[in-house]
């Protein structure tokens, strides 16, 4: 189920809110868990077993790490930091991590592994060694998000950053919470542990949630979708002119930003309606003046997760410059692979990894740091956009072909000009321009909703109604991060 659908807004959400607020507080997490499983199972019912299995393993491991048995009723205490852990604690952590990574590895990378192996043996002239399975693995929705979230729980418990949770319903609720289950933000356990125990429900909180949802929906429907149409038209074409190729790539840059940040806004808004506070996931990333800064503003929940659970354990910057560069590159390549199982994501991650390492050499700043700020922003945006080509293109060949079009290395065929028939229509030009204006001139949702006066409330409601109206009448409604 996607947020931007009639089913969600007019059936699922009203029912979920009604049940949530009508039942006793002690049952709220159970209700939320049930609704979350319905939300998740809507995409493919058998995925709920996977989610439940993963939850069960991590729940048991968490308690084991704390020295408790899942079926006992002993008090759960916070482990002391810096104290060496016992063998069974280490095994429990290993089981948790291994289970989550195995799930992720199998469901996300099995097809990729087979395809890569077959491609390799074909290249080596050993076609007979190809391994052709009779089945293809279907990627479970949001598996990258909830496995990372689950792992953060056992790791936090192991490190002594959070207490294990005794109540299974509370834990299941944390893992499966529908606002951020399938596309984040990745909420680490210690960020939410307190709120699972105590949180308040106020009209002001709910109202701000409405504002977040309204603006998020508007970003998705009014900006991301039209930009997505431009991008799809360009990227799906066999040939495009240089101008159209750039137009399509920039449109994709806007699409992915507004699409993902809109989803995050809506997730935060829904969280607020249920009394939860989720942290910010985007901080005007296209205002960044370097790639380093970009990663301090883009998909913050992922970059912080990678930092805390991967970069720092790898040694971070504590083991010398060379190792720091390697760590940065490694984290970004793995971050790329987290997005998807293809060489395109590896290259996308590598570009960012190399840029981060390079900028680290420059003192965490870009090579063009002496240029005026607007130029630095523009150059950063162009670099990010070029990297997005790998993110969006169907495969490596298509990405290289598209880049060839962007840089005028290829002579586009006769049909290339046909693409312009759609993407330069007033509707798309206006939406693209609006996306650009809002990207660089408008305040972000957090700032806009910090103080809600009459005109802002009216604006939020107008955007909500307009977006709903457009959403109901346009069938083009992709959501990029659902596939990760």
């Amino acid at each position, binding site marked *: 189920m996607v947020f931007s*659908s*009639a*089913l969600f807004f*007019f*059936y699922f959400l*009203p029912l979920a*809110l009604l049940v949530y607020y009508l039942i006793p507080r002690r049952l709220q997490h159970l209700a939320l868990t049930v609704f979350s499983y319905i939300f998740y199972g809507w995409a*493919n*019912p*058998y995925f709920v077993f996977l989610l439940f299995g993963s939850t069960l393993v991590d729940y048991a491991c968490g308690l084991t790490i704390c020295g408790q048995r899942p079926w006992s009723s002993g008090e759960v205490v916070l482990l002391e930091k810096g104290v060496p852990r016992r063998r069974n604690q280490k095994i429990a952590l290993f089981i948790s991590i291994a289970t989550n990574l195995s799930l992720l590895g199998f469901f996300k990378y099995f097809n990729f592994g087979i395809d890569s192996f077959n491609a390799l043996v074909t290249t080596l002239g050993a076609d007979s060694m190809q391994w052709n399975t009779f089945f*293809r693995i*279907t990627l479970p929705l949001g598996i990258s998000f909830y496995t990372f979230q689950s792992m953060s729980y056992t790791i936090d418990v192991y490190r002594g950053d959070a207490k294990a949770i005794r109540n299974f319903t509370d834990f299941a609720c944390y893992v499966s919470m529908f606002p951020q289950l399938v596309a984040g933000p990745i909420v680490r356990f210690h*960020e939410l542990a307190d709120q699972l125990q105590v949180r308040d429900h106020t*009209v*002001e*909180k*709910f*109202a*701000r949630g*409405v504002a977040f*949802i*309204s603006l998020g929906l508007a970003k998705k429907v009014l900006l991301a979708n*039209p930009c997505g149409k431009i991008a799809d038209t360009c990227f*799906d*074409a*066999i*040939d495009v002119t240089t101008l159209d190729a750039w137009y399509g790539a920039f449109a994709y840059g806007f699409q992915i930003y507004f699409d993902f940040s809109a989803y995050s806004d809506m997730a935060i808004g829904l969280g*607020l309606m249920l009394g939860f*506070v*989720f*942290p*910010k996931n985007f901080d005007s990333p296209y205002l960044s003046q370097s790639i380093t800064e970009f990663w301090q503003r883009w998909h913050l929940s992922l970059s912080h997760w990678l930092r805390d659970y991967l970069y720092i354990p790898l040694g971070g910057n504590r083991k010398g410059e060379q190792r720091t560069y390697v760590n940065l590159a490694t984290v970004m390549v793995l971050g790329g692979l987290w997005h998807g199982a293809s060489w395109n994501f590896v290259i996308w991650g590598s570009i960012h990894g190399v840029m981060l390492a390079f900028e680290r050499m420059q003192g965490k700043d870009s090579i063009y740091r002496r240029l005026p700020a607007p130029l630095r922003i523009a150059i950063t945006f162009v670099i990010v956009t070029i990297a997005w080509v790998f993110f969006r293109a169907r*495969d490596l060949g298509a990405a290289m072909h598209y880049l060839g079009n962007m840089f005028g290395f290829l002579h586009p*065929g*006769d049909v290339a*000009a*046909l693409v*312009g*028939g*759609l993407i330069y*229509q007033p*509707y*798309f030009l*206006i939406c693209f321009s609006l996306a650009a204006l809002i990207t660089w001139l408008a305040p972000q949702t957090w700032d806009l*909703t*910090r*103080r*809600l*006066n*009459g005109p802002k409330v009216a604006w*939020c*409601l107008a955007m*909500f*109604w307009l977006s709903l*109206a457009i959403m*109901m*009448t*346009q*069938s*083009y409604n992709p959501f990029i991060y659902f596939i990760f």
Partner: protein
Amino acid sequence: MTQKKIKLSREEQAKREVGRTEISRRLALVLVVAFLFTIYSVPVIQQVIDRRKAAANQTVQSTGESILDSMKPAGMMSLQGLMSINATLLKRISLYQEHLDDTIFLTRALNPALQSLVTGWLKGGNEQAYCGLGQWLFYRPDVEYLTGRGFLDPQVLEDRSKSGGEWQTPPQPDPVKALKQFRDQLGERNIELIVMPVPSKPMIYPDKYSARYEGATERLQNASFDDFLHRLDTEGIACFDPAPLLLKARGDDKNLLYLQCDTHWTPLGMRLVAGALADHIRAMKVLSDQPDVPYRQVTMEITNLGDIAKMLKLPEDQDFYQQETVTIEKVMQRDGQPWRPDPNAEILFLGDSFSNIYSLDGMGWGECAGFVETLSANLGRPVDRIVINDNGSYATRRILSREERRGADRLAGKRLLIYEFAVRELSKGDWKTDLDLTPVTGMIGGGDAEAIAPSGKIAGSGTQGNTGVEIPADGWIVTGTIEAITKVPSPGTVPYKDCILSFHLTGIQSDPGSPVVDEALVYVWGMRENQLTDNATLSPGQSVTVRLVPWDVVQDRYGSYNRQELDDDSLLFLDAYWWPSEGDKKMDLPADTQPVADLATPGSVASGNPDGKTPESSTKSDSLVTFIDVLKRIVDELETAQKNTWQGRDGWLFFGPELRSLTVGHFWGERAAEVSRAMNPKYADPLPAIVDFNEQLKKAGIDLWVVPVPQKASIYPEMINDQLSELTTGDGTRYDGNLREFYDLLKSSGVRVVDLYPLFVAHKTDGAPLYCCQDTHWSGRAIKLTARELARQVKALGWYDSVPKTQYQLSQRDIEITGDLWKSLGNDSLVKETLSLAFVSDPASGDNGVPDWRESPVLLLGDSHNLVFHIGQDLFAKGAGFPDHLANELGFAVDLEAVRGSGATPARINLMRRKDNLAGKKLVIWCFTARDFSETTDGWRNVPIIR
């Protein structure tokens, strides 16, 4: 250190910030209440709408969904069983969501206005339609076929073959593979194959899509097309590619080869290709030597809005995209009948909507003038055809395969098969190779395949399980349970606006004496005019009461509409039936299957609605059925009482035979003798007499215009009685039975008909009544309107200017009349009516009225409608009749030959007695009451007038 403490984590920042949202409580409440009201009101309103609709329809009784059956322990024990349950659930979820998106009221309510903004003004288009330059619109898959990757690219083939989902079978993407198999199958029966991919509009008119192509002459094609041609050539498969021909012929914008707002070609483009294909076929020399079959072509103008414009879902009254007018050439057989496919022809044509446009009336561009008809006329040979809108890669091959498997050997005697499809199918289509063309004998009708004519004779008895009772051609009513049913695509997501769904009906029960059938394959409308029908909501397990009409009876009429077939091939051997919908336009059904009041209708159920009618009285078809019901009752009442005048509302009187004429359905052809009042059944059918009269006049170089005066009750149905007081002609319903279809028949036979019904409906409410309330004739106002309309058309004729003109004068007077119905009613208490008439006079002569002019080039022929207010005496007045007003509008008097009785035969006999071969006449206007088609006792004799 201090700085580090102050720096808050993202989570702390978030909590702090959210806890400090600056908003007044009142404003917060406003925002929350508005939001909650929005998200709760929509489902509540939708629920109310759905419940009302359900209460109105009481459509079905569900016996539960089979998902529970699949969850039996045995099924859940195995992985395969679990996956099967999961696939069923997924399918249900997907269908539910699609249904929700299709039916939610908000979408329907908002779509027109938003589409006006997004597409009308900003040219954003939608998922199906792209806006081109000016009036031009393009179909998205047509554009994507060109801009997308090559359809034979190995990666594309692999990607497509892995698409689909857990419950959707991926397509077979390789057209060459399918065509090779098809060629081989045909080859086994010595049948040649010609493949004809029809170019898409952006290939021929790219400059109308993108200004970048202005003046360019590139040949746009998919990257794989040349490879495709090469592979076909290598395989020895003949391909007729019309693209080079159309590109070469592309001239100025006055002679367009494709419609601007439609996916298809114009008649001009179509004729060009048909001619070239005919030449190509002749050059192949695969057909036997036969004398040419002469076909006649009749030109006709058609105006319609293109299918892409309709896909945009703009408001009804939008003026962003205009209707287009084309001239079609209807192909007529030697006997004057419209062209029909011939099952014995040597050519079988498989085609899609490019063949159906101008052939299938439901597409709105006329009929009998499509690609197959034109090809047949060009070849001078009959052709058999299987044509289905859309899905050209598979649909027609599948039907051919099914026909063969059912035993109806459509390939028997064939030498050539032409396989036409839209070129986009090469990249989008499902080129399945699971089709079997091996004919199976002994499958139809319980073992007599020979008994079935491929294109439409009734099978007679022998339906599976039949106990020997003859199957009535108009069907019989049964009750059964839906075992499986196909889904109808969402309106607007497909390039066709009508779609037939099919379902497997089991456990069939019918009345004693009716044919006995255990199970059947049933076809019924699922989508009409881009609206889902109630049948679209039917689902497995539901019990329905339906009328089963043998499919073979209606196949000619409905066989070319897009049809969603059930996948289960074992159902092939079931007899197929058509379920006539009340929503069908009357002209959609053959005479013997007219859905009048006694028909069960879609939505009727085994229980709770025994008369088989839906209580929803707002639909056109319901109005029509009610109207006919009531009229039948009144006619019965009058006949029992031996009266002929019905007293309606507000003093309106109606003539009994006129009311009857509106209830008889088809009055021509085989049914003529059954329904006509003609004393001699030999003269019951009006069609031959009118066609004969027209032919005689044509030989003498005289035009004939047939001008039937619509029945009063068809224009003012609301005045008949209180039960019909809510009826309206404003919703487009025609209450004059099958007259329109009859007029089409006349037109297709080359007879020009001036249909006054639309004119009268358009002017019904903007002045005095168009009929005398107490008389059988029309009013002075109707006369004036008709005269003006006819004169407008006469003035366009070449000879008109050469006739000397006279300026007449008009004066208005009121007169009280004693109408013939008033007299017949015999109710003296009823106040006589007063009419306001416009009198015509000649200022030069001072005459009141216009004398008939025997030498006039225009002869007015007919019944007393031409005499009323013209001759005075018992016809009320002089100088205000139809001849007077026609003279006033034309500027010259007309010759008159009218009788008080029937305008059908007696008037023509008078004409015959003139014995002047109508010398000097240019035009005969034959004006008579429309009721005479069935009600004249004199009948319709052929009268030799021109000798």
